[in-house]
């Protein structure tokens, strides 16, 4: 493929197969705009962006955006993203993941990426249900959720992924909502521009298996300046705990936490060397063997 630098040119000709009313459309369009605007504003060529997807409805985004992409396997996009950053620190690496994908199948990778502070952005399409496998509960489904694998209702409590990320050492934590599109785009841009591991949980409408539109519309509010101190762990924690993905409470969206820490990949720089130089190094090592 050849990149087209206009925002409209970032959409591929591939036929879109998301359900009508799916929250993925907002994520797609806001990510497209975020990339196009950052490219324009920061002078970063489109070729320097890489998207990664896991498996689930969210992953189809890999086919729909005309940007470098690695369409990986279920739950495993984050280690691949880490590998890409180790290979080339000029790249802006954005992982699109699902809630089943990364909170269930690949949670270990999410926690370790936060712990390492590798400079990638993780966007969770958190519709709180498995869509592509037709309606089972995920780690963020509310208690009592009746899915096809739990017809009597889920007995477990959902996890609060933001709290998990804060504990794991994430340096940038935010939440968005697919029906607040302008806000969502700004949340994306801020996360992508954050230097270090950035995490965005996007409350996404699933039109078919878990349509929480009315609930979110009634509870979601945008955080304002002064609502919290994003540089303080305790302040972020308090705000993150306002809603636990289960009981009724106001649902804050925006940035909860954002700090600077050294990057993981900076600890692994290797000066580029050709094959002959590598072979010379091997030979010298064998010759000086002790």
């Amino acid at each position, binding site marked *: *493929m*050849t*990149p087209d630098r206009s925002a409209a040119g970032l959409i*591929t000709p*591939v036929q879109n197969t998301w359900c009508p009313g799916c929250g993925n459309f907002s994520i797609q369009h806001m990510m497209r705009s975020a990339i196009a605007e950052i490219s324009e504003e920061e002078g970063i*060529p489109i*070729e*320097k962006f*890489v998207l990664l997807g896991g*498996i689930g409805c969210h992953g*189809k985004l*890999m*086919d729909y955006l*005309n*940007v*470098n*992409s*690695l*369409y*990986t*396997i279920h739950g*495993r996009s984050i*280690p*691949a*993203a*880490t*590998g*890409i*950053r*180790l*290979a*080339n620190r*000029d*790249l802006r690496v954005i992982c699109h993941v699902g809630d089943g994908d990364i909170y269930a199948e690949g949670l*270990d*990778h999410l926690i*370790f990426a936060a712990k390492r502070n590798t400079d990638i952005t993780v966007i969770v399409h958190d519709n709180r249900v498995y869509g592509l496998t037709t309606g089972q509960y995920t780690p963020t489904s509310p208690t009592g959720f009746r899915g096809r694998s739990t017809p009597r209702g889920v007995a477990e409590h959902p996890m609060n992924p933001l709290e998990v990320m804060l504990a794991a050492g994430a340096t940038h934590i935010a939440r968005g909502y697919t029906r607040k599109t302008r806000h969502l785009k700004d949340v994306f841009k801020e996360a992508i521009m954050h230097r270090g591991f950035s995490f965005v949980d996007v409350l996404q409408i699933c039109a078919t298996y878990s349509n929480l539109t009315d609930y979110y519309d009634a509870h979601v509010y945008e955080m304002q300046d002064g609502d919290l101190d994003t540089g303080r762990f305790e302040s972020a924690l308090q705000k993150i705990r306002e809603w636990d993905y289960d009981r009724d409470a106001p649902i804050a969206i925006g940035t909860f936490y954002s700090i600077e820490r050294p990057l993981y990949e900076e600890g*692994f720089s*290797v*000066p580029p*060397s050709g*094959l002959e*130089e*590598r*072979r010379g*190094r*091997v*030979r*010298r*090592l*064998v010759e000086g*063997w*002790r």
Partner: protein
Amino acid sequence: MQEYSLLIGGKAGEGINTAGLSIAGLFSRLGYRVYMYFDYPSLIRGGHNFAIIRAADRPIGAHRTRVDVLLALDRKTIETHKERIDGKTTVIYDSSQVREETGYGLPLDDIIAEEKAPPITRNSAMLGALARVAGIDREMLEDVLRAAVPEKHLDSNLRVAARGYSAVENVFSVKPLDAPALPVLTGNEAAGLGLVYGGLDTYVAYPMTPSSGVLHFLAGRAEDLGIRVIHPENEISVILMALGLAYAGKRAAVGTSGGGFCLMTEGLSFAGMSEMPVTIVLSQRPGPSTGVPTYTAQSDLHFALNAGQGEFPRLVVAPGDPHEACAWSAAALMLSWRYQVPAIILMDKTLAEGACSFDLDASTPPRDHEPLLEDGEGEYRRYRRTEDGVSPLAFPGMEGVTVKANSYAHDERGFTTEKAEEIRALQEKLLRKAGSLKAELGGYQTVKTYGAPDAEKTIICWGSQKWVCIEAAAGVDARVVQPVVLAPFPVEAWSKAMAGAGEVVCVENNATGQAARLLREHGFDPGRPILKYDGRPFAVDELTARLEEVFV
């Protein structure tokens, strides 16, 4: 023919492996070719560790049961290895632990107390005593210690070694040979060097015996070699990081053993579908499951050949010694990139942790390969359907191209597809690639033969059992045939190597005859099985006895 066998044994934590390598270093400096087998249980302190070092005036790669010198740091060493001792064996033991033995008792407790030396220096006393018994120069002894011991402990080790040296008397004389002093490397070290020789940028691994030696070696020498070494959270992450590196254009390799490879299989299949190169050092140990972590087996051959869902080409090679481990690791990495397939270097504990005299010039691949790169003409298609099945590579960040790699069935551009004709075309592209790889391997020595072509008796073996078979074959007038490449199976080279094979046996360190099964699958007769599945490799004399039962 000159050769010597020595055993040093003691508890884990007493530095038996290092002491064994120092003994190997002594003989190496005298121009001998050496081989070391290291045997240890899965614990950190206590138990019983031992190393058997064999030195000869010709290349060797296996141990014998009997030893000429037994160095016992504890009573257990003497009790455990009675069958290795005869009237001619010189026994040197720690008389503070063992009493009333024939041989030379060294009061190691007293020696280290008098020298105010740390307990680990007991080994150096043994080394000193060995040097005297074997008529090896003190200077040579000191040179070996200088190479093995860190500067701050050198003095105490030299003093203790001198005490060992003067506590015994000369028994026999090891004649210096007119041959170069070769370094002594483990299979793990040789494989690591081979990967770098082949152009490795990053090694990624999670610790697992017996593959950890590659990780430790490359991590320890990363700066000297100009590579990166990464240890992530688990083997799933290991292989996915490697694939991410490959997607962005960096050559990565990973290392593991059976259980870790289980976790890597979905990543392996992803590599197959997305055509992302990755090289896997897979070091076998006895299974199933945790099995016997620090012992040996050749029981994952079919796992390596078949791991991962779906049908995709792969390269599987089984080197037989550190020289082949180095050459084939380099070749595997380069071929993996040239043909965009996963490559597996199938080793085992015997090869991975066994050590051997190493000559780099005898350990390099026969040819170089560069990956096929996009030339910038026309629209870039990551999965362009070419005649040989190999699509030109481009990497993210390159101007004017979008690189779309995919785990789903995909069209040429990398977009997901479910169309029948696209699925068929993709599968046929993978098949063409398999054919191209196979044709390329026609230029390699994929099957090796040793001994007289007209022997009329043939021993088939693979991997680490190569050298024990070569030596045992000489005793029963047989020849040896060793398949080094196991996938794609070199059918033509095999037919040629087996022409006039006569009576055939197939020697393997497993319970079901896995190479034999592979040969039958390709329509070849593997002969009669000679199997050993107790976690230990064959000793030369042990295998000779088994062969004599079968060849009548």
